């Protein structure tokens, strides 16, 4: 017992370690999950936030542009209403086109350039040009009045065909310095008031509207003609961004999206959105680059917070696991003790059971052996007695004495036979070869035998059973049961009494009832007990195994034997046999 105590303590320590490890695992997993989720949330928030800023700025830009476009549409409708414009275009007087439009469009070209916030309202144009019916640029005779352009820039204004709606385009203007700037051009169709056909288009060039830098560090620009114009960034950065954008735009069929880029080593979110969807001019995109430094700082802070929380949780978990382990180990300790006690008790019981079984087997074997050992001397003894009785010179007293002895040897043989049978049954060696047995015939035979016995008792026998009543069983043993019951009925009868034998079958069972007059059995006396001896002395007595044997045999046959009643000078036994299928009885 003393060696199990440290083992138990060791077990508890192991349990505690396991508990702590599990807790650590859970906390570590939770922390990692927290990290992951926080990072995702911060990133998604930043992206969403920046996207919202980009969208709102673009939409305000869009509103300004819409104002501009509406003003231009008005202007072009007014132009279209001009006879001289029509005359110049329709009557092939192209030389008169620009002079005719000059008055109408004078304010576009004159005046000071407005401040950016009023750019939407005012229509200060860099230049304007008309397109002919094929979409080609009509060259002005005097470009000074309509904004001078070099041939390369002017060529970009041409369209494949005249548009029937406003078209927005972004072209690169080649200034003398070679540092191209972006010009926003709007092509507005001019409809004939006569026919409704598009007869020309007015293309007006503006300085592009710029996004307001509401967000710290935000930089915006335009990507047009495969070239990024983001003046806030150095040229080399622009070039590298340009390559990325070109790849992105080539692979994406979406009008807008965003992706991460590194600008000068700092992570940024680059948004792009098509400025002129479905335009006849080449596609152009608004580009906006937002630094992610703020969200990265936020992420950094959150990481520290989550890490700290995780560490605290781990510490708390350590203490808690310690306490929990202590608390839990007490019942576990008790459980261990209890189970030890249980084990010893069980072992003891098992040992007792084993010895009992052994003894039982030994006794069974012994009784079988004993019966065998007894049988042969009794046979020798009986044969000796029979040969003695065969002599004629015996005195009558001696003859009687020898006869009585011979009778006793017969009884002894019967007892030994019964004992042998019982021991075989106990050992489970008795096998029954079931055949249909004619019970009626069997009972008749035994009753005849009873009647033939020299008897001092004058017993009357009543029979009440159908002829040819068959039961299932081995004839030997069925006969033994019947014999036992009938012999008892005679043995324990009184002079002048009667025996009544009846039998009936109900299809499944056949019940044989044997009743007799005479001394009754006191209640509570277990007459079926092996080697039973009646508590009330009487002249008739048995060896105390007959009823036991009969009942065991009846049960072995799937039936039973029981005492039905024993009162008022009447004792009745009932034995139940299995009926033979289909053979119930023939009356």
């Amino acid at each position: 017992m003393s060696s199990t105590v440290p083992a138990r303590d060791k077990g508890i320590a192991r349990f505690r370690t396991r508990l702590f490890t599990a807790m650590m695992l859970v906390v570590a997993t939770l922390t990692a999950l927290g990290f992951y989720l926080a990072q995702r949330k911060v990133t998604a928030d930043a992206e969403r936030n920046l996207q919202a800023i980009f969208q709102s700025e673009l939409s305000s830009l869009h509103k300004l542009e819409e104002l501009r476009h509406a003003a231009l549409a008005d202007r072009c409708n007014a132009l279209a209403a001009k006879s001289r414009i029509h005359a110049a275009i329709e009557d092939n007087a192209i030389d008169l086109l620009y002079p005719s439009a000059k008055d109408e469009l004078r304010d576009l070209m004159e005046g000071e350039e407005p401040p950016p916030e009023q750019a939407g309202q005012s229509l200060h144009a860099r230049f304007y040009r008309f397109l002919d019916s094929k979409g080609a640029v009509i060259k002005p005779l005097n470009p000074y009045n309509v904004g001078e352009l070099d041939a390369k820039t002017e060529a970009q204004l041409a369209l494949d065909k005249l548009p029937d709606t406003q078209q927005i385009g972004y072209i690169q203007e080649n200034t003398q310095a070679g540092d191209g700037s972006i010009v926003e051009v709007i092509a507005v169709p001019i409809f004939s008031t006569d026919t409704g056909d598009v007869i020309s288009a007015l293309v007006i060039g503006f300085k592009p509207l710029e996004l307001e830098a509401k967000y710290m560090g935000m930089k915006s620009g335009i990507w047009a003609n495969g070239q990024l114009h983001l003046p806030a960034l150095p040229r080399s950065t622009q070039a590298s961004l340009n390559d990325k954008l070109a790849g992105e735009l080539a692979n994406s069929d979406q009008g807008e999206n965003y992706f991460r880029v590194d600008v000068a080593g700092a992570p940024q979110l680059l948004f792009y959105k098509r400025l002129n969807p479905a335009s006849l001019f080449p596609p152009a995109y608004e580009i906006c680059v937002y630094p992610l430094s703020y969200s990265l700082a936020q992420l950094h802070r959150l990481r520290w917070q989550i890490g700290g929380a995780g560490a605290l949780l781990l510490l708390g978990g350590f203490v808690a696991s310690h306490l929990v382990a202590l608390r839990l180990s007490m019942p576990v300790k008790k459980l261990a003790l209890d189970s030890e006690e249980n084990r010893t008790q069980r072992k003891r019981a098992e040992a007792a059971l084993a010895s009992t079984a052994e003894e039982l087997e030994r006794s069974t074997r012994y009784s079988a052996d004993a019966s065998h050992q007894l049988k042969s001397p009794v046979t020798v003894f009986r044969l000796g007695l029979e040969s003695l009785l065969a002599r004629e010179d015996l005195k009558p007293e001696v003859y009687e004495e020898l006869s009585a002895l011979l009778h006793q040897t017969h009884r002894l043989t019967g007892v030994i036979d019964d004992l042998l049978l019982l021991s075989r049954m106990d050992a489970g060696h008795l096998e029954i070869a079931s055949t249909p047995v004619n019970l009626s015939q069997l009972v008749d035979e035994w009753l005849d035998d009873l009647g033939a016995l020299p008897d001092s008792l004058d017993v009357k026998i009543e029979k009440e059973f159908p002829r040819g009543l068959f039961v299932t069983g081995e004839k030997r043993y069925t006969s033994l049961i019947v014999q036992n019951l009938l012999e008892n009925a005679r043995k324990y009868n009184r002079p002048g009494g009667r025996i009544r034998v009846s039998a009936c079958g109900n299809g499944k069972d056949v019940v044989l009832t044997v009743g007799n007059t005479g001394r009754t059995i006191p209640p509570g006396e277990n007459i079926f007990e092996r080697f039973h001896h009646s508590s009330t002395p009487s002249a008739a007595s048995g060896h105390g195994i007959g009823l036991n044997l009969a009942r065991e045999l009846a049960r072995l046959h799937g039936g039973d034997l029981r005492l039905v009643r024993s009162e008022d000078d009447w004792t009745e036994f009932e034995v139940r046999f299995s009926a033979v299928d289909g053979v119930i009885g023939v009356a």
Partner: protein
Amino acid sequence: MRRQGLLWLNAICALFPATVLASATAEGRVELPKSHSAPVQAKRYEIVTKAGVLSTQPPLAVVYLDGSFPQPASVPTKEVAQKDLTFIPAILPIQLGTKVEFPNLDDAYHNIFSYSPAKRFDLGRYRPDERPIPTQVFDKQGLVILRCDIHEHMRGLILVLNTPYFVMTDTNGHFRLNGLPAGHYTLKAWIDSRTTREKPVELKSGQTLHVDFP
């Protein structure tokens, strides 16, 4: 001298075609484009533009004898008035060198101008009571499109021809040209600003030639 006399004769013929005895006549029918609009009651025509082509509505044609005829010493002055914001007549064929008056019969200002290659002019804004009445002499052959700078929808046509022999068909396309000189000529039928059909004709004095423009 003799040649000059012949010229004179020609001039007289041109001036008084009906009185000249030794003259030929051409008559026939011009197949006109189908008109989809209801017939105009008051014999008023308007100029319509369809795919850049100007024509009259309802359709009619101007049939003229093309050739080289001497410029007359004086040609009668013709008139294209502006009434109810339209040109009356809507189409006016004239001989080269004709002077056309543009009286304003409306209560509004008009500003008649043309950017046509055959004649570029701008009469400026003028009131109905403007005197003298603004005029223009058309000295280049071709189609002149008249417009009003104030009333954008107004269109008028002046067909400047180098011949004194021309006539407008009726709305069914029937025409008759009297007092034509004998000889080989080309008879032309102007249908719209893009379509002019022509046929060579041999005119004989005192005879009537039947010419159809399918």
